[in-house]
Structures are given as C-alpha cells and as structure tokens.
C-alpha cells in the first residue's frame, strides 16, 4: 500500500483527494489528460531488486546483485544472481517428504535463481501478455567462492548440463509457460499451477 501511495505521489496526482478545492481540482483534471503516462510502468529486475523465493530451498528473500542477461536488467524467465537477505532459520534434518535439509540456503549466501514471476509484463508470441503482482525466483544453485586449484589456477564451478536446475523440491504459486522455453522443465513439473 505504501508503495502504491508512493507511486501516486511520483506521478504527480494530488494526494488531497476529497479535500481538493477548485484550484487543485483544475490541476488534477489537466494532469489526467494522458492516462497512460500515469499508469505504473513496471521495469526490469536489476541490482537492488528484492525478490521473493518461492521454493523450499530455505531462502525467503533475495536481493538481486546481477542480472545475467540484458543490459537493462532481467525479465521473466531470466537468471539472476542474488544475495540472500532473509532465510528460514536453520533446523535439524528430519526424515520426511522434503528430502533436503530445511534451510539449505543461508543468509548472506550468493545464489543463482531464475525469475518465475515478474511484475513487468512479458509478451508472448501469440500476442498475449502476462504479468504477476510480485517478483519471485526459484533458487538454482549456490555460488561458491572460487577455489584455487593445486596448480594455482582458479577452479571453475561445474553445473549439470548447460542449464542450472532448481535446488528445492517444491515450488509455490503460479508458474508461467515461459519456463518451458528456458528449459526449466523441472520447475514446470513441480508447479502448483501453470499460467
């Protein structure tokens, strides 16, 4: 709600609402001429964007520190590197449905993630567009500090195949079809609902 209020302020609308006198009424009527410019323009996911984590890898909120694709930032389906700002508190391993230890991802770790929900609209080939109400990622892997090999060279991190696979075993919330194009088939199969 605060964000919505802030957006209204930046767009230059009068906050007064019902308390407007004639003058500010005139002002607001002139400014509402171009209604399109007043709509909130959602943009890319860039450095500093807070993203929700929607799998059970242990993280709760991640701040993007790098988008691996695009100069302006990441969109729906792109991979970002983020720093975990908030995580589920660490607890002991229990035998159960969730095979991995709760809290595999800890606060302060640098993780790779794929954007599964973006507030910025993404166009599809059939002319439709999709947008969600929030920004969310699924954690793909933890970025380790580059280790130094015996020869003194830096050892490169290996990943299975050319695409990263999700770390968690469950995904919450709706997932768009764009994941199929991005070869994140595991996420698609784990999803609750396909949009």
């Amino acid at each position, binding site marked *: 709600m605060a964000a919505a209020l802030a957006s209204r302020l930046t767009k230059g609308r009068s906050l007064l609402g019902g308390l407007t006198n004639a003058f500010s009424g005139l002002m607001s009527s002139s400014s509402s001429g171009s209604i399109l410019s007043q709509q909130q323009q959602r943009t890319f996911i860039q450095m500093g964007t807070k993203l929700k984590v929607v799998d059970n890898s242990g993280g709760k909120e991640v701040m993007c520190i790098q988008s691996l694709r695009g100069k302006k930032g990441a969109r729906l389906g792109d991979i970002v590197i983020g720093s975990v700002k908030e995580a589920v508190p660490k607890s002991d391993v229990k035998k159960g449905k969730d095979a991995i230890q709760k809290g595999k991802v800890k606060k302060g770790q640098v993780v790779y993630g794929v954007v599964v929900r973006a507030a910025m609209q993404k166009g599809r080939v*059939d*002319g439709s567009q999709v*947008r*969600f*109400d929030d920004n*969310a990622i699924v954690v793909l892997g933890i970025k380790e500090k580059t280790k130094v090999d015996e020869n003194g060279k830096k050892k490169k991190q290996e990943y299975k195949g050319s695409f990263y696979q999700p770390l968690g075993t469950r995904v*919450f919330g709706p997932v768009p079809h764009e994941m199929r194009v991005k070869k994140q088939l595991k996420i698609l199969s784990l999803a609750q609902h396909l949009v």
Partner: protein
Amino acid sequence: MATSSHLLPQALHMIPRIPNLSSKSLGVSWFLPRASSVNSRISVSRVSLNHPGAIESRKRRVIIAKAEESNEGETEADLEDVAETVEDTGVEEAKTPWKPRTKLGDVMGILNKKAIEVSESVRPVPEIRTGDIVEIKLEVPENRRRLSIYKGIVMSRQNAGIHTTIRIRRIIAGIGVEIVFPIYSPNIKEIKVVSHRKVRRARLYYLRDKLPRLSTFK
C-alpha cells in the same frame, strides 16, 4: 465577387455540361447568396472531390450545409454556384492532387474490418465489456493435449481493430495474475461471459491495490 464575375463566361460554358443544375426538378432549392460566398466556397470545396460525377451528392451536402439564406432567384444562384464550383475545383486541383475514391486514411480501417470479419466467421466473439467475468479457453501450442482455461474479470478493453485486447485479472494460487488477450486471436477457442459485476469505470486498475478477495473467482 470580382473572381466570380470573371468566371461567369466559363460558367455559361459549364451549364450544358451539368445536366440538372436547376433544382426545379428536385423540388428543393439551394441558396448561395453573394454575401456569404466565402462560406459557401469553403463548404462546397469540402464537399466532393469527384467533381463531374457526383452532382447529386454535392447537391445533398450543399443542402445540408446551409439552408438558412433567403432565395435570391434560382438562375442567379445556379450560375453563382457553378462559378464557385468551377473556381473550387480549379483551386482544389491547384492545391491538392486528385485523390482516389478510397482515401488513404481509410485503408487501415478497411483492412481491420476485413480481418475482423474473417475472424468472426470462424468464431464469433461475444460482446465483452469492462466488469464482465469471462472464461477463455486457449489453445497453447506447447500444451496441445488440452485447452488452458483462464477465468477472471475484464479489467480493460483496448480497441485497436484486429488487435483488440482485453485484460483479465485473477488471483491464482495466492498471486494476482493479469493476462492480456487479443480477442480475435485464432488461438482462443472460446470466450464465454460467465457473469457481470457492476463497475463504474472503464479500466479497473484499482483492483491491484484492493484485497485479493475482489479478484478471486472460483
């Protein structure tokens, strides 16, 4: 007035060319008093570009344009009108080139209408307005086994010919999702209006800030 007077001899030539110039046969009188010849010139030039052909339409439009002035004697009016049309066409052809019958500005409109007709013959589109709760059955090329169903409230309708789109909003699995559909798309297999909610706006963007309850549809 000097201009019209020197065109009169030309007008005299013109009279046999224009057959039913006198409006007695029509039973309608059209008036072009000298005083307001400036106005009449403008209105007649606006009328028709198909000068020799569409005398009827010109007459009709002249009648519509101004019917207030007093009758000054029909022959006089005839000559003056002819003079002015001659002058107008002369003026027109000097200023603007001869345009074809389908004006350039209409082409996109005509193409859009044709495309919409084609789409409607395959699948008729119901009347959709903002505030309708609709259900859309979409064929997704990736998921060809069955049709995806999208249900939600129509937040807005943007009219753009063949790319007329509607924006559907719904809360899916706890998260609000908005999808823009082009309603004449061949991928859409069915659009059905399930119910209607009374709204007092054309665009319901306020729903984004409201409780999720208002955007939930079973």
